[in-house]
Each structure stands twice: as C-alpha cells, then as structure tokens.
C-alpha cells in the first residue's frame, strides 16, 4: 500500500474542495459562474488555461508515448504546444473582442440563427465527451496503480472513475468558473512541479540527455504487449509467423521459457506479457531506432497527426471559453504567450522523463528491484505507467506521491474545464436562451450546476464502458489516442467555422452550419470506423477499410469542413442584414479605446463580492 503517496493525493483533493468552497461566496451571477466575472489577469489566466489544457494525456501519455515510441512520441508534446500558435494568431483577440460567453454564442452572434447555435451546442457536447472519456480512463487506471484495490465492492478501475466523477461534480458545481479557475491555477503548478521534479531527480541520478538518447538508439525499439495464448500462437496469414516467433527473437532464453510455460497452460483469459520486434512504418527498409521517426506513423499520418494536434487546440471548447475570461483582446494575446512558456517548458521535460524511464527502469529491474506495474524484458508492459514508476524508483513513495497527485491534478483541471464548457452549453446556450429566458440569476446558476451533475454522470458511464468494449486492449496508448480523437472532432467541427467567421466576411449562416455539420460528423464517422477496424468489426479492404485505417481524420475532415463553408456560402450568398455591425464587433476597437482611456482594461479582482 502506497500510504504516503495516497496521503499526498488526499491532500490535493481536500485542498481542491477547500478552494471551491472558498470561491463559492464570490459566485452569484452567470458571468461569475461561467466566466469568473471576466476579471482573470494574463498570468492567472495563462496558468488556468495551461491547467485546463494539460490533461492525463500530457502528464502520463506524452512520457509514455516517448518511452514506447521515441521520436514519434515526442511529436505529441510539440504538437500540443504548437496548437496555441493558431489560437494566438487567428482567434484569441477576435473572440474576446466579440465579448460573449461561449463558442455557441459566437456562432449565434456572428450568423444570427438558432439553428447554428444549437448545432454548435451539439458539437461542444460531443467534443467535450470525446475529451472526457480519456480523462475518466486515466482516473481508473491511475487509481488501479496507486491504490490497487476497490472501494464499496467495486473493482479498482471502477472505484477510480466513480471517485473522480464525484469529486469533480462537487467542486465544479460548488465553485463555478472562479472555483475552477483557482483550482486549475493550483493544479497546473502542481503538475508542472511534479514533472520538473522527476526530471531533476533523473539528472541528479546521473542522467545524460544526449548519451541516454544514443544508448536508447543503439538497438531497434522493442514493443511490449500482453496477449492471450491463442493470440500468441495465431499465425499472420501474410507472413505465416506467430507473435511467439517474434518474441523468441527478442527475449532472452530464460524470459522466453517463462512465456512458453504460460502458453502451455492455455488459460483462455490469462494475458501473457511479451516483448516483440518493431517495424518502421515510415522508412520500411530501415530498422526502427528510438531517435528516428516511423514507429507509430507512416508518411500520411506524420502530416495528419501534426495537423490534428496543431488545429485541434483551436477547436477545444473548454479552451476557447477561457478566452472570454480575459479583460481585453491584448490580454488574450498575452495570456497565450504565457501559456506557450508554461506548457512549452512542461513539454520539454515530458520527453526527458519518457527517455529517462527506459534506462532507469531497465537498470532497476536488472539490479533485482521490483515495481508495482507489470514488466517484461526490462520494460513496462503499459507505457502510460512510466511516470509513477519512474517517480517511485528515483524518489521513493514521496516522489511517487507527488507524481500521482500530479496525475490526478491533470485530470481534475481538464475535467473541470470540460464540465464548465458542457454546463455553459446546456445551461447558458439552451436553457437561458430557449427554455426559460426570464429565469432569475439564482435559477440560471442552479441550472448550470444541475448541468454539471448530469454531464458528470454521462462521462462516468462512458468511462466505465471503455473496458467493457475492449478499447483498452485495442489501442496500446489509449489515453493519448483518445485525446487526439477529441482534437480531431474539435478541429473539424469548430475551426473552419471560427476561421471563416472571423476572417471572411462572405461566410453565410447556411455555409457555416453546413461546415460544422460536415466537419463534425465526418470526423466522428472516421473515428468510429477506426475503432471498429481495431475491434475487428470492419475489414481493411475497400473504401470503409481505407477510411478506417486513418489514425487521424483531420487531413480529410478539416479541409472538407472549410470547403463546405466556402462552397455553400458562395451558392447561398445571403449575408446577415447587420453584417457590418457584426464585423465591427469582431474587429472594431472603439470599446478597447474607451476602456484604455478610462483604465477599464486593467484586471480587477476575481474575489470582489457581488453586490
């Protein structure tokens, strides 16, 4: 039992709840609940955006992806960071100048129809669910590693999902955006510090970056996998070879003998960890080395993945909502610059941790040490467990506790932002606009809180369903993969509408609506085809097989959404009657000049009591 580590996680949770209760007294109006009263300064907002953004995928997934795949894993870090350039260059100040609450408000304000507001709400909810799913999966798996046992008769995975859902629903409903903002600031700095500490401990224990990279690149990458006896002995129809044949070439005679003994038992449910050879998908004639591209992505996916990550950030509703909390357009740009500094340093550290994990874990196991996670051939079977394992090896239970709390902080901060985004979509965009426009402030805030609870329950159900459908077995690095799906959906649904809505006056309501619809559903369709193909439901032949093989649909779906908007807008040609006025709201500066003249652009305090 990791008593100290669990204690540190409990401290984090209690502090989180205390912050929410503290900020409760400052949440009276809907602007407070959804936007923290538009009084969040650049540094605070940048910390909160970074906390919002850095999820389990960044904290556990990036180091895990680097540990498993080398350079192709490093791209996750670079791509996640690069996405903010699209935000700062094309969206940040325009969104803030427009001055609404949500992305759906922007769509309605820009194009003036209820239809586009409602389809945007649908897209916000679907994108948020896609992003919520990996956080829930991360909660279950981290609980399983950290605590190792369930509560109230539930298994460890289920316990993690249920506990995290309950905590999140409570603190977001109680604290609203102010409480969530405060928590995200605190959680971001905790997880940044946890990552920094792991890297410092690695260097303190003799890690040498260029030398470790040279060492890791001496031999081809080894894949680890847990497979049943049947899977291990089933031959590939093309090559006639079984995974067991591949394992024999990689593993030592002693390791392989242990595998053969387990295979001989022929237990249909038992998963046997094995080490397998790797293939270079990019340069097929080259062996796959750690420092070279090709372990995960072929030539097509190298480009598609970069676009998915870079464009996807600009399509995440919980990140875009944060830009409305800035006091001015210039502050929105400053916030983004600081975000790039904060997350950039974090993403420089994460691949170092992943690389350090290879040497330290191998040496530790070779020296007779044991770790909680499953291992084979001196490597972790599940790469996503590299951070807590490395923490335990380098700094004992204390560092493991800091890392585990960092993992939960990453999940909490992202789930908090997603819950606020989903609550604002339902409570603000639907309830306040269509169901009860005359509702009192208290009632509106109450509906926001009920939305948080409802969406939390939905996310919990999805989190619990993931292992039931075998998705965790179908994808080796599921957390990072699922987050990339959310990026793909957001990039395809929102980014074409936002870019054309801000930068092309000729965009019509029909064009934008059609673009969102096409982008949203084409991305979701291809993602599900990919899932069905991995689960063996859809074959690899024909048109379905081609689209099902696309790991990231953005290279198709983003241009498709953009093209749809252009073509439909050109055919339609019906601009809103007040298009000049709308244009002035997006690009006009009179309000900023007025605020600057009277000093109203300065940040106030988030903690002024509502009168």
């Amino acid at each position: 039992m990791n008593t100290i580590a669990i204690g540190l996680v409990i401290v984090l949770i209690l502090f989180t709840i205390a912050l929410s209760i503290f900020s409760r007294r400052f949440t009276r109006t809907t602007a407070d609940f959804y936007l923290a009263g538009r009084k969040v300064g650049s540094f605070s907002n940048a910390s909160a955006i970074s906390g919002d953004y850095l999820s389990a995928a960044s904290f556990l997934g990036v180091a895990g992806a680097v540990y498993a795949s080398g350079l192709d894993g490093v791209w996750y870090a670079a791509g996640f960071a690069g996405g903010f350039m699209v935000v700062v260059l094309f969206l940040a100040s325009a969104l803030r100048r427009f001055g609404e609450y949500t992305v759906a408000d922007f769509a309605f304000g820009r194009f003036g129809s209820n239809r586009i507001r409602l389809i945007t709400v649908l897209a916000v909810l679907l994108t948020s669910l896609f992003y919520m799913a990996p956080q829930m999966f991360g909660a279950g798996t981290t609980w399983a590693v950290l605590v190792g046992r369930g509560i109230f008769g539930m298994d460890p995975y289920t316990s993690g999902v249920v506990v995290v859902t309950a905590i999140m629903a409570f603190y977001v409903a109680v604290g609203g955006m102010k409480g969530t903002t405060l928590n995200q600031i605190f959680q971001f700095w905790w997880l940044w510090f946890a990552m920094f500490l792991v890297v410092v401990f690695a260097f303190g224990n003799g890690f040498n970056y260029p030398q470790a990279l040279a060492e890791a690149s001496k031999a081809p990458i080894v894949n680890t996998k847990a497979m049943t006896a049947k899977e291990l002995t089933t031959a590939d129809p093309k090559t006639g070879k079984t995974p067991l044949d591949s394992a024999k070439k990689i593993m030592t005679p002693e390791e392989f003998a242990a595998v053969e003994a387990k295979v001989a038992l022929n237990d249909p449910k038992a998963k046997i960890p094995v080490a397998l050879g790797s293939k270079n998908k990019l340069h097929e004639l080259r062996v796959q080395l750690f420092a070279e591209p090709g372990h995960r992505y072929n030539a097509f996916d190298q480009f598609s993945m970069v676009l998915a990550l870079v464009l996807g950030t600009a399509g995440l509703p919980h990140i875009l909502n944060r830009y409305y909390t800035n006091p001015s357009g210039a502050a929105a740009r400053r916030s983004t610059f600081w975000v790039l500094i904060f997350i950039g340093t974090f993403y420089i550290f994460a691949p170092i941790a992943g690389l350090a994990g290879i040497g330290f874990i191998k040496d530790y196991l070779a020296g007779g040490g044991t770790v909680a996670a499953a291992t084979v051939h001196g490597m972790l079977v599940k790469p996503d467990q590299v951070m807590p394992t490395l923490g335990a090896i380098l700094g004992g239970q204390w560092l493991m506790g800091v890392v585990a709390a960092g993992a939960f902080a990453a999940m909490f901060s992202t789930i908090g932002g997603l819950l606020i985004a989903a609550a604002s979509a339902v409570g603000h965009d639907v309830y306040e606009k269509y169901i009860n426009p005359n509702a009192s402030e208290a009632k509106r805030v109450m509906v926001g809180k009920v939305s948080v609870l409802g969406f939390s329950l939905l996310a919990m159900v999805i989190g619990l369903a993931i292992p039931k459908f075998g998705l965790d077995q179908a994808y080796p690095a599921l957390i990072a993969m699922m987050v990339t799906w959310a990026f793909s959906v957001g990039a395809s649904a929102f980014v074409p509408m936002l870019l054309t809505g801000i930068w092309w006056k000729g965009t019509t309501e029909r064009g934008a609506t059609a673009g969102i619809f096409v982008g949203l559903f084409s991305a979701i369709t291809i993602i599900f085809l990919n899932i069905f193909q991995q689960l063996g439901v859809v074959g690899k032949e024909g048109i379905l097989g081609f689209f099902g093989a696309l790991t990231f649909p953005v290279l198709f779906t983003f241009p498709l959404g953009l093209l749809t908007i252009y073509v439909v807008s050109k055919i339609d040609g019906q601009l809103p009657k007040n298009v000049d006025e709308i244009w002035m709201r997006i690009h006009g500066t009179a309000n900023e000049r007025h605020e600057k003249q009277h000093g109203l652009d300065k940040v106030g305090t988030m903690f002024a009591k509502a009168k």
Partner: protein
Amino acid sequence: MGDTTVNASTSNVSIQHGEHIDTIESVDLVFRAQRKLSFTYGAIFFAVTLAIPASSVWWQGWYSVPIWGGFTANYLFVSLLYYFFLWGMAWTYSKQADKLDDRLMDMADDIANATVKGGEGS
C-alpha cells in the same frame, strides 16, 4: 459596455463607446492590417511546422544522422528547438499586434470622426 451606442440610421453603421467611434471604414482598416500580420505569421508557422514531417519523410540527413550524442537534427528540433521557435513567434507577434493596435487606434478615431462628420453633412 453600458454606454455603447449603435447608429444605423445613416448609410454607414457606426458603434460608439464613450467618445470613441467605430465605422466600417475604420474597422476595415484595422481588419486588413490585422489580417496581413496574422496570415504572414501563420504562413511562417505552418511552413516551419509542416517542414518537419516533410523532412522526416524525405531528408535522410535530417532524421538519421546523429549530430550531438544520440540527437539527430530531427529529434533536437522537435524536442527542444521547436519551442524556442514558438516562443519567438508568439512574442514578436504579440508585440507587433499591440503596436498595430496602438497605431490603428488613433487612426481609427480620425477616420471615424471624419466619416461621421461626412455622413452628417450629406
């Protein structure tokens, strides 16, 4: 925004915040300047970002030759140098956008005042 006035009675729509007025002419000026700046930086950003996977596919010296310990140029750029590129881009863009805002603010007031006076006179 309590003292915001939208005036659509003349042929040119204008929005007034306190003493400051936006007209479609002044906003178009701001928009064109901002678009030029954003899309110039955007073109550089996408050219550099997409050049990395392109080099990974077609330039062997980029992805396979170690230049510092185990670092290839590809690994060094993606894991470290790319962030300096992003920070430099974001910093210079923000500064230029702020300068542009300041420059255009005075011009916008002049254009807006001239336009509104012209509209009143016609």
